């Protein structure tokens, strides 16, 4: 219920406020919220601390960037993006060919990260790698991909990144990053993905995944193929992160190795942790809250803000492992128990 309220409120924002800068900001936050949701799913529910959600985010972002770039290129007059010409490439590389077609480009932007996550996850979880080792392996993989994107300048424009000159256009509609349409698309993605994930968590599949999180050995003894569940939940979180990557490039019209940086991936973990990793709502609120405060703190406080955030993060990890949202849950539980006590008293009196 609370989720529907949240999304209804978010959806109504463009009608109330007319500030396009604000809309763009909120679209960015919703992308971050999607990343936080993916972390919350794989970590809070699945028990896998993946520091490499940025891999899916970055790969999808590059896929989308390439699609948008190729929308700008014309096959006859202007077939090769300018950064390739500067890198002395004469023909469009094979890797870029599929991106002439927008639907195929979008498909690839989703497919490649998810397939990678399936393969990588299968490799890790079949070997029963767990806990800290998973984190380190995802960390190493992320660093590897970052090096790749940074280095392959003819293909990925290196550290300069790809900046498609035109906004994304689909079905003949130009999606201006500062328009309510872009905002609604992002919120739409966020809302649909969150609600679907919530349904997944409350399904039988979700219960088994939580069982593997709590005690993998016990789940194995009960007969469940733990590796399978871990791979699937890992892949789904990769899918969510990929959606985030796609929306990101749509909203900022730029992709660079920064999206594959360690700080982006770990920031997603920070948002989910601060907001509440066990609750998707918490992750979303964490992302919005942290990024919102960060943007509006201004330059002077910005420096101190990072220290404050670090301390908040340490504090949350130490004292509030369930995140800030556990404070709300605690408050609600006080009300709940009061109501239950009252009704209990009534029934006792009646029985007597």
């Amino acid at each position, binding site marked *: 219920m609370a989720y529907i309220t949240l999304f209804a409120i978010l959806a109504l924002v463009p009608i109330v406020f007319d500030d396009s800068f604000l809309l763009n900001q909120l679209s960015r936050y919703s992308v971050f919220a999607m990343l936080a949701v993916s972390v919350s799913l794989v970590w809070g529910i699945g028990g896998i601390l993946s520091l490499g959600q940025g891999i899916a985010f970055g790969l999808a972002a590059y896929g989308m960037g390439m699609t948008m770039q190729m929308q700008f290129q014309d096959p006859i007059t202007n077939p090769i993006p300018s950064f390739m010409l500067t890198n002395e490439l004469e023909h469009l*590389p094979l890797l870029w060919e599929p991106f002439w077609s927008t639907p195929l480009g979008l498909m690839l932007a989703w497919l490649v990260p998810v397939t990678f996550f399936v393969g990588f996850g299968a490799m890790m979880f079949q*070997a029963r790698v767990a*806990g800290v080792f998973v*984190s*380190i392996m995802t960390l190493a993989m992320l660093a590897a991909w970052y*090096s*790749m994107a*940074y280095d392959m300048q003819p293909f990925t424009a290196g550290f300069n990144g790809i900046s498609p000159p035109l906004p994304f256009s689909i079905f003949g509609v130009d999606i201006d990053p500062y328009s309510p349409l872009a905002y609604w698309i992002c919120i739409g993605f966020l809302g649909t993905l969150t609600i679907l994930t919530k349904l997944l968590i409350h399904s039988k599949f979700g219960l088994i995944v939580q069982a593997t999180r709590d005690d993998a050995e016990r789940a194995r003894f009960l007969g469940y193929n733990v590796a399978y569940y871990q791979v699937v939940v890992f892949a789904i979180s990769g899918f969510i992160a990929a959606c985030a990557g796609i929306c990101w490039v749509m909203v900022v019209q730029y992709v660079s190795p920064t999206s594959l940086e360690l700080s982006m991936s770990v920031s997603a973990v920070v948002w989910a942790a601060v907001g509440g990793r066990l609750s998707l709502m918490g992750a979303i609120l964490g992302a919005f809250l942290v990024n919102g405060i960060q943007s509006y703190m201004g330059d002077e406080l910005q420096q101190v803000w990072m220290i404050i955030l670090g301390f908040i993060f*340490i504090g949350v990890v130490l004292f509030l492992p369930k995140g800030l949202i556990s404070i709300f849950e605690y408050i609600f539980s006080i009300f709940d128990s009061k109501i239950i006590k009252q009704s209990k008293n009534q029934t006792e009196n009646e029985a007597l």
Partner: protein
Amino acid sequence: MSVNFFWKAFELYPFLNALFIGLSLASIWFIAAIGLAIIYGTMGVVNMAHGEFIMVGAYTTYVLQSLLGINFFICLPLVFIIVGLFGWGVERTIIRSLYKRPLDTLLATWGISLVLVQAVRLIFGTSPLYVSVPNWLNFQIDFSFLHLSGLRLLIIIIAMGLFFATWFLINRTSWGMRIRAVMQDKEMASCFGINTDHVYGLTFAYGAGLAGAAGGLFGALKTLFPDMGSGYIVEAFLVVVVGGIGLLGTVFSATALGELNSVFSYFTNDTFARFVLFTLVVVFLRFRPQGILTDGLKRR
């Protein structure tokens, strides 16, 4: 695009030079990783702030050198003690409450690293600073195919010295015996009267101190900037995890990874070499998660 785009023809002398550079790289990674290995091996704590300890050590060396005018070589032990004390404080306050939750220690130490980077940025600003080495170190060995700077040679020698010192500390002193006991089984060790909290604190301090001294050395090698820690942390982790829990394992993995990196970057270039190396490590970990050398300890 053909594969030939990457691969350079094999020439003996530059290749041998690359092997030598690999040794220098291995010594750097070994020094960076050894503190982490000791902390992880004894306490199972993944210290994401290790890179930042290195950075703090470098900046402390800068302060000691420029403000107090202390000789570079005396700076190093001083920095060891200062950063060690700082590490001990961190362990007492933050790490202590998180022993049962290894993933949360990872996150808490990441929070510490954020705070450290930002604090250093506030105090020193973002422009690069320099630690200078005594003049007599500014020589270059030009020995037919070998080109190596004096400082890198010093780092290799210090790495070997550190290895022996740590080996001696852990295997030949009573304190080292306590550390080994706690490494094997914390509860049993405390049953035997070893103050495990004390051991943990000192171990973390030792690891942090090593990182600080490493920072002093590395600061002289490259420039100082607040983000420099991030350049060491991933490699240090990989060295620790590939090497397994143990001093010798760390040496082997540092050498192997350093040489492999150098060889790959000889054939292709630095960043692609990194990509190949990390992928290889991930594949290796899948088949042997406990690392190259383990003493039969249970896999954490």
